[in-house]
């Protein structure tokens, strides 16, 4: 029996897909069996970020509608053999997902995998609600700025009311993962401080991922950043976050501006 973890945010573009790929790859590298499921039907991106876009034959909707077996639809990652992807459909829309169908797929994945990471679409409507419905835990991706924090708060409210666990009266375990943290802008007061974010959301911090060019480079080559550039600060932060997800207690380090004096003089960025 595995753990179903939904990666959600409310706001779009904050790093859900990037984080799903990075965390999933980091967990799989420790030997865990990990399945990544893309719930963004119609606007799928997880297969791109994983470099599997040319190998997608069957997708989640095909499996739900019985046109394909789960084993036919799961795509094994070429680099880590315990990491699998279940892509979303590009041609359908979210109405093709049914609650019973999703429930069955998640249940079957849960029997085989240690972790099932559900990459939620943005928003609070059906797609996002279905992605969170069967989750045991949630990672809420938040950028340290006001509109993202507001939307995350809304999503936390939905996690506490619209999931199966919440309806059974159980508490769904939630973590906040702060992404695109820019130490410079935080120092200038242009970004919310981590403490402010946590004070508003009142949810434990899973990690702080610094803004990094490495993330864009990784998605351009179709690899999770933790695989593509493991020494990159963002990759290292993701790996720490994956360890915390697995239950380890690691202190969270707030990324600082590591530019030396010369770099500052010549305005180069370290990451």
């Amino acid at each position, binding site marked *: 029996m595995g753990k179903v973890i939904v990666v959600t945010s409310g706001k779009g573009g904050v790093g859900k897909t990037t984080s799903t790929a990075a965390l999933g790859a980091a967990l799989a590298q420790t030997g865990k069996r990990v399945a990544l499921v893309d719930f963004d039907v119609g606007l799928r991106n997880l297969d791109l970020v994983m470099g599997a876009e040319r190998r997608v034959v069957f997708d989640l909707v095909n499996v739900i509608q019985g046109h394909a077996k789960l084993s036919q639809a799961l795509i094994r990652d070429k680099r880590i053999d315990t990491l699998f992807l279940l892509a979303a459909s590009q041609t359908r829309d979210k109405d093709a997902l049914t609650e019973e169908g999703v429930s069955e797929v998640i249940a079957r994945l849960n029997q085989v995998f240690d972790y099932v990471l559900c990459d939620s679409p943005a928003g609070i409507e059906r797609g996002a609600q279905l992605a969170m419905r069967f989750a045991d835990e949630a990672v809420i991706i938040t950028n340290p700025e006001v509109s993202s924090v*507001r939307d995350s*708060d*809304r999503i*936390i*409210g*939905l996690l*506490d*009311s*619209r999931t199966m666990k*919440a309806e059974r*009266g159980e508490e769904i375990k939630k973590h906040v993962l702060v992404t695109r943290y820019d130490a410079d802008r935080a120092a200038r007061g242009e970004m919310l401080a981590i403490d402010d974010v946590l*004070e*508003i959301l*009142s949810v434990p911090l899973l990690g702080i991922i610094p803004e990094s060019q490495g993330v864009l480079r990784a998605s351009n080559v179709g690899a999770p950043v933790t695989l593509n550039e493991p020494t990159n600060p963002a990759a290292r932060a993701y790996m720490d976050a994956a360890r915390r997800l697995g239950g380890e207690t690691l202190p969270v380090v707030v990324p600082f501006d590591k530019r030396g004096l010369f770099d500052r003089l010549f305005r180069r960025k370290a990451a």
Partner: protein
Amino acid sequence: MTSAAPIEKKAIRFRARSFVAFALAPEAPLGEWIAGLDRWIENSPGFFAGRPVVLDLAALQPATDDVAALVAALAARGIRVYAIEGIEVGAAVNDLPPLLTGAREATLDGLLARNAPASAEAVPAAEAVPAAGQKPVQAKSGRTLTVDTPVRSGSSIVHMEGDVIVLGDVSWGSEIVASGSIHVYGTLRGRALAGADGNDHARIFCRRNEAELVAVNGWYRTAEDMEPAHRGAAIQAFLDGGALVVAPLK
């Protein structure tokens, strides 16, 4: 010639139910009262949605024809009048809501005065059932609702039986509506509407004021109209001489 099966006599059971409903009591001049109602609805849209409302016409005493117009005007605002009281309505007016007599003020004493089985079936219509399905942890001592989880954005907590105490923060985009006072032992970032049943003596207290809106018995103040000194500070809001005052909490 088969004989028809004997018709089973099923006993019909009548059961008693008691509900707590809002009573709206219009006053003359009616135009002004409706304007005040519109202001209230503007600040709390959907407040009356699904809530049974009793129309108390004792003060207004309109003519029989005007009653239908008033009920229609309220219906146009999404307020469904379930019953009318306080007026003699002629038997000919069939399509008006039924006339009620013997309604009692919903105080604790009033509810306890009924014998035990009936009060056990009492289903207060304006109970604390938040719209977004948030479950307030009920340490409900008589009439006070205590919420010890943060009130998340999108949630609506309505408690028409007394005070509401929140032990966490109240997020933006959420609201607390209480007939009594509202005490937030955290940061109030959403909306707080106290004295919602006409209670002029209700107050709002919070440890840190970043509220979108505070209101006591319909008199409201938005974030824009609050003194900068009162933002981020511990404040109380209350009615003084018919005006809403926001003052620091010492």
